[in-house]
Each structure stands twice: as C-alpha cells, then as structure tokens.
C-alpha cells in the first residue's frame, strides 16, 4: 500500500460523497448535505496534510531544509484545519460534519478489506465458477428488492425541500443552479435569496468574466519570450488563432485594432454558453438581457468607431446616405430614418439569435433530463436515466461553439460594413 492507495481513496471518497450528497439533499435537507460535504472535505484535506508530513519526513536523499519545508507546510495546514474545524463545529450540525468526516476513513477500511478479500483463496474459490458469481449477483438484487419498504419509509420521512428543485416537476423550466440550492437553504423570503434570484444571470456572467480574467492573468504572470510553459503556450495558441481569424475577416489594415474586443467577445460568449452544461451552473446567454447587453456593446463600439474614422460630419453624412445632389438632399428625411433603423436592427438581430439558440438548447436539455428522471420516478430515487447524454450534450457543445462564432463573426462584419474598404484605405496611403 503506497501513496497511490491514498490517491485512490481520495478519488473514491469524492465520488461517494457527491453521490451521497444527492440523496441527503433529497431525503434530509440541503443544510445537512452542506455540512456533510464540508465534513468530508475537511477530512480529505486532513489526509493531504498528514501525507505531506509523512512524505516530507520519510523521503530519502533530500536536504534537511527541503524536508522541514514540506513537513512544516503539512503541519501548518493541519493547524489551519483544526481552526476551521472548530468554527464549522460551532456553526453547523456536528452529526452531519462527523458523518462526512468519517467517509474517507470508511473508504480506507472498505478498500483495505476488499484488498484482503480479493486476494484471498476464499474469494477465488467463491468466484471461480461463473454460475456461483451469477447466483451471488442475483442474491444482491433480491436483497435490494427486499429493502424497498425501507427506501419507501425514508421517502415518507424525508424532507420535501430538495425535490422542488428537481427537473422532473411539470412546472420547472430551468435546471437547478447553486443559487437555487442557496435559495432553498435560506428560504425564498430571505433578502439574500431575493437578491441572488434577481441578479442570477448577472452573477453567472460575472463569474465567467472572473474565470477568464484569472486564467489570462495566470498565463501572463511569468511570461517568457523563449520557450513558453504548457499553460502559456495553450493560451497563446488560442490568442493566435483568434488573431488570425479576425484579421482574416477584417483585413490586415483594420483587423488588428479590433482583435482584442472580438476575441474577448468570442471567448466570453462561448464560456457563458458552455457554463450551462456544468451541473448547478447556468448559461447567462439564455437570458435576453445579457445578449441584448452584448449586442448593445457591439453597437456602441461600432458607432464610436464610425465617428472616430469618419468624423462627426462624415458620420452624419454617412447616416444621411452621402447626399451629393439636390435630389439626394431632398431624400435625406427619408434616408435618415431608414439608415438609423438599419443600424438599430443589427444589434437586435445579434441578441435575438444568440438568446433564441441558447435558450432553446437549454430547454431541450431540461426536457430530456426531466424525461429521464420521470422514467424512474416509480423508484423514488433522486436520479434518473441520463437521456440527454451524449446526443443532446454533443449538440449543445456544437451549438454553443457555433453561436459564439456567429455572434463574433457578425460583430466583425458590422465593423467591416462601417469601415472604409480595405483597398480604398490602401489607395489613400
């Protein structure tokens, strides 16, 4: 049993805790589930700290300074965890915390037992003839079947709060997010719940923006002009592709100026679209408010660039349809509203297209998830058959990427239509 055993214990514990938390949310309460998960996290970090101390003290061929640094880091983490544990015990349900805390230890014991059992002669004798294995499996299934009344009793005694967030309900049109869970925990009348519910889409869009800022910031923390690290290389590759793409559309004269805006727009939209595929998250672009804000930003930037390139007089001349003759001047009262309408229609068409596609995609996922849950509704278990997987998830991935691409390409086309023609600009120089 080496360090890889502990790594396996960590992975198994995390999966087991996540799975158990679904049951606890459904049958006990969200607060209890939160305490249970925190307890398990506390225990896992504790194990990591212990592992650091042991590895630090027992690794051969290292100087004493490195040994002390490692062991000291582990000990500091242990002390910090003790303090956090004390705070958690005073604030949360101690039983739930202790049950969560015990999960990794239970997994260690079960794993050790299973290792002993699987390598024993008794197990080999038991599982060698395939008929006997099948018989054992059948016995297990019968045991679960016999335990049904217990499950039913748990269902009767269970808390109803968790099921409200379940997508199987006929009135539910959205998947539950972590904000829904917080709302359930605090109650719908709590001012924090009200605030979170009102600003849900903005919170998710800001979360995506924060992730983008952190990732870019980390990639640029120690930039090198030599051979870059893996992370810097990946980010640079994305930037280069986006640069080439938008310069390819806008041309080498005007293109580089708009790459930062259009590239950010693409990454921001694709991240927001894909965020809806992560459990307990939501696509902020499934709200018309967010897509309209994106469309308006593009509109404002395009108009600003129009004024910057043409000057105020040139811009008004452009809006009036470049009148040069008396007849054309006579047409200005007609051409001006036509031109303004045309300009206004562009951001609206952008926002509507993105909102419609992402909203539709989310609805499709909700419908199929709901169907998957209702198929197994008779079992009263808090999960269902993942009918949305992999066809609709694949479709959503494709559509999310495509819509982000379409939005940014059309935005670049709006810039293109406002800018003077590339060869005209070249002729001026």
């Amino acid at each position, binding site marked *: 049993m080496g360090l890889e055993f502990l790594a396996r214990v960590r992975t198994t514990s995390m999966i087991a805790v996540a799975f158990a938390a679904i049951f606890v949310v459904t049958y006990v309460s969200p607060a209890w589930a939160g305490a249970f998960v925190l307890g398990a996290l506390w225990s896992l970090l504790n194990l990591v700290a212990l592992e650091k101390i042991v590895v630090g003290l027992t690794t051969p061929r290292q100087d004493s300074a490195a040994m002390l640094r490692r062991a000291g880091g582990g000990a500091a983490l242990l002390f910090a965890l003790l303090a956090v544990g004390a705070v958690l015990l005073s604030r949360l349900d101690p039983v739930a915390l202790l049950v969560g805390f015990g999960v990794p230890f239970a997994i260690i014991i079960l794993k050790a037992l299973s290792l002993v059992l699987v390598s024993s002669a008794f197990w080999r004798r038991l599982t060698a003839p395939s008929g006997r294995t099948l018989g054992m499996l059948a016995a297990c299934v019968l045991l679960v079947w016999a335990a049904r009344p217990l499950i039913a009793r748990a269902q009767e005694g269970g808390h109803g709060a968790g099921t409200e967030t379940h997508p199987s309900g006929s009135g539910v049109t959205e998947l539950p997010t972590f904000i829904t869970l917080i709302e359930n925990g605090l109650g719908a009348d709590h001012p924090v719940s009200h605030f979170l519910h009102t600003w849900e889409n903005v919170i998710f869009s800001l979360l995506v923006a924060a992730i983008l800022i952190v990732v870019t910031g980390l990639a640029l923390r120690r930039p090198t002009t030599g051979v870059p690290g893996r992370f810097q290389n990946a980010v640079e590759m994305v930037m280069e592709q986006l640069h080439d793409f938008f310069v390819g559309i806008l041309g080498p004269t005007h293109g580089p100026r708009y790459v930062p805006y259009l590239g950010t727009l693409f990454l921001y939209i694709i991240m927001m679209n894909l965020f809806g595929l992560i459990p307990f998250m939501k696509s902020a672009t499934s709200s018309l408010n967010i897509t309209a804000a994106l469309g308006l930003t593009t509109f404002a930037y395009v108009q600003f660039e129009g004024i910057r390139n043409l000057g105020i007089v040139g811009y008004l001349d452009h809006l009036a349809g470049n009148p040069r003759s008396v007849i054309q001047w006579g047409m200005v009262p007609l051409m001006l509203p036509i031109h303004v309408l045309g300009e206004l229609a562009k951001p609206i*068409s952008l926002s509507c297209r993105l909102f419609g596609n992402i909203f539709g995609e989310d609805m499709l996922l909700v419908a199929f998830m709901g169907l998957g849950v209702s198929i197994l509704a008779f079992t009263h278990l808090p999960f269902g058959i993942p009918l949305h997987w992999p066809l609709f998830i694949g479709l959503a991935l494709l559509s999310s990427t495509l819509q982000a691409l379409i939005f940014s390409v059309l935005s670049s*086309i709006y810039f293109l239509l406002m800018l003077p023609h590339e060869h005209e600009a070249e002729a001026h120089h």
Partner: protein
Amino acid sequence: MGHPPEKPEPFEGIRTAGMLAMIPLLLIIAPLLGAYIGRWLDGRFGTTPWLLIVGLVLGFAAAGREIYSIYQRVQSDEERKKKRAP
C-alpha cells in the same frame, strides 16, 4: 508580421458567408423594429395606425438598403478575388 497583398486571405469565405447570413435576420428584424417604433409613436400622438404603417414601410426600406450595401460589399470582394487570380 508582413502583409503580402497578393496572398489570398484564408478567412475570405467566412467573411462572405457571415455577410450573407445577416440578410435573413435583417429582413425580419428591421420591419418589426420599424413597426414597433411606429406603434409606440402612434400611442403617443394618437395617430393609429398611420405611423405603424410608415414604420413598417421604412423598416422594409431599411432592410432593403442594408441588403444592397451587403451585396455591394460581397460583389467588390469577388471582383478583387478575380483580379488577384492569375
């Protein structure tokens, strides 16, 4: 980064496709927007349904004008491509 002028641009196809893809939505959104603004003005000035009709007509005209400018742009791109071809 050099800019050889005679080299074919790699994303020219996407640019043309993007410009042409704008046409259907512009055809829907521009008249709707015109009608909506017209209806709002009707409500303010009590001229129902005249400004709505004017808005709708202007919306169609705006869509037509935008499509014409897109078409011109696409055509001039095509001509440039033809000139560049040997």
